[in-house]
């Protein structure tokens, strides 16, 4: 206690200060559900997630992942992630829907009959393991991050490494990013690789590995108290065997427009891609207000594919522990130069051709929402995201009449001509559940 004279005010303040300074700093209050590591202390963050994904009539995927991040007192951090994909279902072969049944051979060596007017698909079952490692070091205003990737499927192996440097300027109002990455993928098709634009002549050698080099540059900036914006550009060059080993191209008879022969597709051995992404995040109102995230991406490559993507997310906090975030995305793609729905017998063979719908003209619309919540008395944060994806494209084939003389095994289809959809609509639903906790 002070020996000098104290005013009544000081006595009151002193008494209150005594109580305050003697109070025990409690374990974090119930309202403190932070999973961010406390600054300056080492901390571990664990994230578990599971994705369930299904395409109507086609593929089903189950994908659990685990990610651990450890933050060290010196600001460095280490991240390790492992993922497992189990995929089953049917993938389009690239062939054209027929008015007669067809049989196709698949990668797994199984054979199947396709009902009329459906795009032929091949059954597959595959699984993929992937591992990623990343290490981040702050050096003054810079942060350097290096990472490595390894993944493996039955017929595909991928190895990758990357390095990214960010620079914070103007008290973290502006951030510059620069990075480069390399991938080396090897494909080992079941049954061996075949020569493109042949019915199935073997390639004779193992296909060249796919080597990818990519570069990234970006800038992001705090525009105001409630607005963040950023622009980034990436450029990727892929070299090597880029053809899809199981995709086929139908060659149609010019008179009946029925499939006369099937050839394997063929793509160039070089692809240069460029994309530019502009992002903006806007906080409405004050703390607790909504946040809108708007992205636009423009993409082009030297195969002729060009696309525009617009993505909008809207985060709304219901209260301290719950939030929802609806999401809508629109995508429009122009086809690759060598994309063909089919070839016609008698016409000269092009140098490259593919009927893979993913290189064709298509539109995708995605609608979904994420719900984030904390369970009372349980640490950690949960989020559940449900999305519906609808993809479609133009392209119809109308066949002349009397294509078929009666008496087919499958018990009938149009004896007259008909129109088939060359790129029927695809419906995909996905559910992503994540749980994140910090220690």
């Amino acid at each position: 206690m002070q020996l000098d004279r104290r005013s009544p005010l000081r006595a009151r303040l002193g008494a209150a200060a005594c109580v305050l300074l003697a109070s025990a700093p409690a374990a974090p209050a119930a309202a403190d559900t932070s999973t961010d590591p406390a600054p300056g202390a080492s901390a571990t963050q664990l994230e578990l997630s599971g994705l369930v994904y299904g395409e109507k009539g086609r593929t089903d995927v189950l994908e659990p992942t685990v990610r651990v991040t450890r933050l060290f007192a010196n600001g460095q951090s280490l991240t390790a992630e492992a993922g497992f994909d189990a995929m089953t279902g049917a993938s389009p072969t690239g062939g054209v829907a027929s008015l007669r049944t067809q049989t196709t051979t698949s990668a797994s060596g199984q054979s199947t009959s396709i009902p009329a007017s459906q795009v032929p698909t091949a059954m597959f079952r595959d699984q993929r393991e992937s591992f990623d490692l990343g290490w981040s070091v702050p050096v003054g205003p810079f942060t350097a991050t290096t990472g490595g990737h390894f993944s493996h499927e039955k017929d595909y192996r991928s190895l990758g490494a990357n390095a990214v440097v960010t620079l914070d300027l103007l008290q973290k109002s502006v951030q510059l990013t620069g990075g480069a990455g390399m991938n080396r993928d090897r494909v080992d098709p079941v049954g061996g690789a075949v020569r493109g634009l042949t019915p199935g002549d073997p390639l004779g050698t193992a296909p060249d590995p796919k080597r990818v080099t990519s570069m990234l540059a970006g800038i992001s900036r705090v525009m105001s108290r409630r607005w963040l914006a950023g622009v980034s550009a990436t450029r990727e060059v892929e070299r090597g065997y880029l053809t899809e080993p199981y995709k086929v191209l139908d060659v149609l008879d010019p008179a009946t427009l029925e499939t006369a022969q099937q050839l394997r597709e063929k793509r160039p051995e070089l692809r240069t891609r460029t994309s530019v992404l502009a992002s903006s995040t806007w906080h409405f109102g004050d703390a607790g207000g909504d946040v809108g995230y708007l992205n636009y991406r423009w993409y082009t490559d030297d195969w002729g594919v060009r696309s525009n993507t617009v993505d909008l997310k809207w985060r709304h906090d219901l209260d301290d522990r719950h939030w929802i975030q609806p999401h809508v995305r629109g995508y429009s793609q122009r086809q690759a130069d060598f994309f063909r729905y089919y070839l016609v017998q008698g016409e000269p063979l092009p140098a490259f051709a593919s009927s893979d719908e993913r290189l064709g003209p298509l539109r995708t619309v995605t609608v979904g929402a994420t719900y984030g919540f904390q369970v009372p008395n349980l640490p950690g944060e949960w989020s559940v995201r449900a999305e519906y994806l609808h993809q479609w494209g133009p392209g119809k084939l109308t066949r002349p009449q009397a294509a078929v003389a009666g008496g087919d095994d499958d018990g009938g289809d149009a004896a007259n001509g008909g129109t088939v959809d060359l790129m029927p609509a695809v419906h995909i639903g996905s559910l992503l559940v994540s749980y994140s906790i910090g220690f």
Partner: protein
Amino acid sequence: MRTRMARTRSALAALLLALAALASGCAATIKPWDRDLLAQRKMKLVPSDREAATDRHVYFSKEGSTGGAGVGGGGCGCN
């Protein structure tokens, strides 16, 4: 129809313009007492890494475009 070269050039010009817009402006930094909203975890350009990674994988296998924000991730046999 403009040639591909001309389209790429004008796209790069638009990019440079956007970069210049971002880099310029009043180089006023945001004062510490105005960083209240920005300190929130939801104030990021990418709200969720996990969702972004999942999207990259899904759209890589269903569409013909990639990229925009990262480098050297993983490859898979799905495209």
